[in-house]
């Protein structure tokens, strides 16, 4: 049994009528997504901005209400749980966001920030303090950092505080939404490495959301590729750059600027043109067809279905 199973999840945002009183179509942020995350697994979720990857993460963490579909956690349907039972459930999911400062209360010091979730669940003071010290050590912060305000910490240190707080209740699943994107290059690797070692040490599961395919491939077990609210391919992270089958995944791989001047020039022949279309008006057929270099007639009409390429590797493309 998977730790988390998502079935045909849908989130539509309806919009108010515009000033000219024209009703506007709903935004299909997440449009029929199914996926699983096993215990101790890191599922990477990649895609361009606006593809719905953050919305999917927020739906899974129950920060957003679904429009349709099911979410199973340890075999139990959780997408319509409310009130006290939702509160109890939340211990199991924690979220780490991109913006390291807006996710911390600027008027609180590190210690109360990390202890707050434990306080919420009624943990005793001495236990809280011990756990907090333990967590500080675990995420590589100094004891003295406990008495500092967020503005006294660097971006990397603030993200470590966020990680410590997220781990305070020993959750089963961490939703990491672009956790290193706002950090500097040299700090990015530190935090990635920390998340990697914590995951292995504590047997955590991550939904690791990022637009940076190279970063995702270093930490993930499997990678799901999202385009306009749908998952177009899921595949093992190891060897992804060779195994990827969907034209969109291929385009994302080719768009990663290689830190190798001997292979310069590849970047100067972009594989896809243009930008994703408006998600309130997804194109018919395969949603990627207007930008796909290989699109055929049926791609414009028929919806592609998932095909099994190999073990754990599925893609939705007519040409496979």
């Amino acid at each position, binding site marked *: 049994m998977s730790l988390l199973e998502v079935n045909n999840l849908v989130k539509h945002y309806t919009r108010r009528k515009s000033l000219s009183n024209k009703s506007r179509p709903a935004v299909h942020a997440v449009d029929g997504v199914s996926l699983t995350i096993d215990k101790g697994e890191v599922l990477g979720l990649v895609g*361009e901005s606006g593809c719905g990857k953050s919305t999917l993460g927020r739906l899974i963490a129950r920060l957003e209400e679904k429009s349709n579909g099911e979410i199973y956690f340890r075999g139990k349907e959780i997408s319509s749980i409310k009130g006290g039972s939702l509160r109890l459930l939340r211990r199991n999911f924690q979220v780490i966001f991109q913006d390291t400062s807006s996710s911390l209360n600027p008027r609180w010091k590190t210690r109360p920030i990390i202890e707050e979730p434990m306080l919420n669940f009624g943990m005793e003071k001495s236990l809280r303090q011990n756990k907090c010290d333990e967590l500080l050590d675990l995420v590589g912060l100094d004891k003295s950092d406990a008495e500092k305000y967020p503005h006294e910490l660097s971006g990397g240190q603030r993200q470590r505080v966020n990680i410590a707080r997220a781990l305070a209740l020993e959750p089963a699943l961490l939703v990491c939404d672009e956790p290193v994107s706002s950090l500097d290059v040299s700090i990015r690797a530190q935090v990635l490495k920390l998340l990697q070692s914590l995951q292995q040490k504590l047997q955590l599961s991550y939904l690791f959301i990022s637009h940076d395919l190279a970063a995702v491939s270093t930490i993930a077990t499997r990678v799901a590729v999202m385009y306009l609210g749908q998952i177009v391919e899921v595949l093992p*992270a190891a060897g992804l750059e060779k195994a990827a089958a969907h034209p969109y995944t291929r385009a994302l791989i080719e768009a990663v*600027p*290689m*830190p190798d001047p001997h292979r310069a020039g590849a*970047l100067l022949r972009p594989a896809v043109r243009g930008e994703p279309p408006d998600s309130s008006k997804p194109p018919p057929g395969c949603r990627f067809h207007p930008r796909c270099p290989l699109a055929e007639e049926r791609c414009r009409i028929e919806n592609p279905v998932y095909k099994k390429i190999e073990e754990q590797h599925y893609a939705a493309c007519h040409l496979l």
Partner: protein
Amino acid sequence: MTGYIASEKPALTVNNLSTWFYTENGTVRAANSVNFTINRGETLGLVGESGCGKSVTARSILGLIEPPGEIVRGEIRLGSTNLLHLEASKLEKLRGRDIAMVFQDPLSSLNPVLNIGLQMVETIQAHRKTNRKEAKRQALLQLDRIGLPDPERIMRSYSFELSGGMCQRVMLAMALLLEPEVLIVDEPTTALDTTVQTQILAELKRLQRKMNMSLLLITHDMGVVAQMADKVAVMYAGSIIETAPVRKLFDHPAHPYTRALLRSIPRLGQNDLTPIEGQPPSLFNLPAGCPFLKRCPETLSSCYDYMPSLEEVSPGHFSACLTAHKVELPGVSSQ
């Protein structure tokens, strides 16, 4: 494929440039004795982490440093003109026409209450004596050259109606309107998706070749530098610590910081990361000695005494590290 085709005539020379900021909390030495030259048609990649002084260097070149900041010394030559000794009115004429800049955030660089067409026409008319109709024709042509679909519609649009990628293309089109000899681009694609980034970088490279323009590309992304630059200068805590032709820098990085930086970037198909421990130093009252000292795995006792200057380790390859001067670099041929 051999290296770049560029004439040896420097289009932009920066000599010993130091820009400091005098704040209440002390002096921030944002740029310290920065030296580089960019030849006609050449691309220099200026890389470093945030706060290392790369943007301050760019702004100094364009004369955009405002108090409490001050260019304390140095020389900036555009061709044969020293920009630092130029009257404000002359500098204004030159900016945009001979040297232009594209900033990271395209949305805040565009005026939200004027349509794109008007802003482009204004730019042209500020520098050239042309009528509106002719200016509009030139603007349309430029939008088309940068690869924007339906230029007529773009001209009528406001910045908020366009995506980030389209806005950045508009900025690029505006910067290239007057065919400057030198273009400075400061993190031009950092806020954009990689799929859009490649398209914009490809257009930029194509137009650069066509116009034989010199490019100063400021970025923190080693991948972008590897793909775009002919030469690279690595900045750390306000100083250039290594500079070399792009292949030499990536194949035989001489400075420990460059080496650590290259090891710390995630690459596709590789899942071991070697981060650089610690953080860059604060630029307030930098101590004597090498600024990378605290994070460096290979320090000597003399590293504490003074900031090493850039020394040639192989032809065209300079490194500001006391250890680098001593070691023989494997595989570097001396021509």
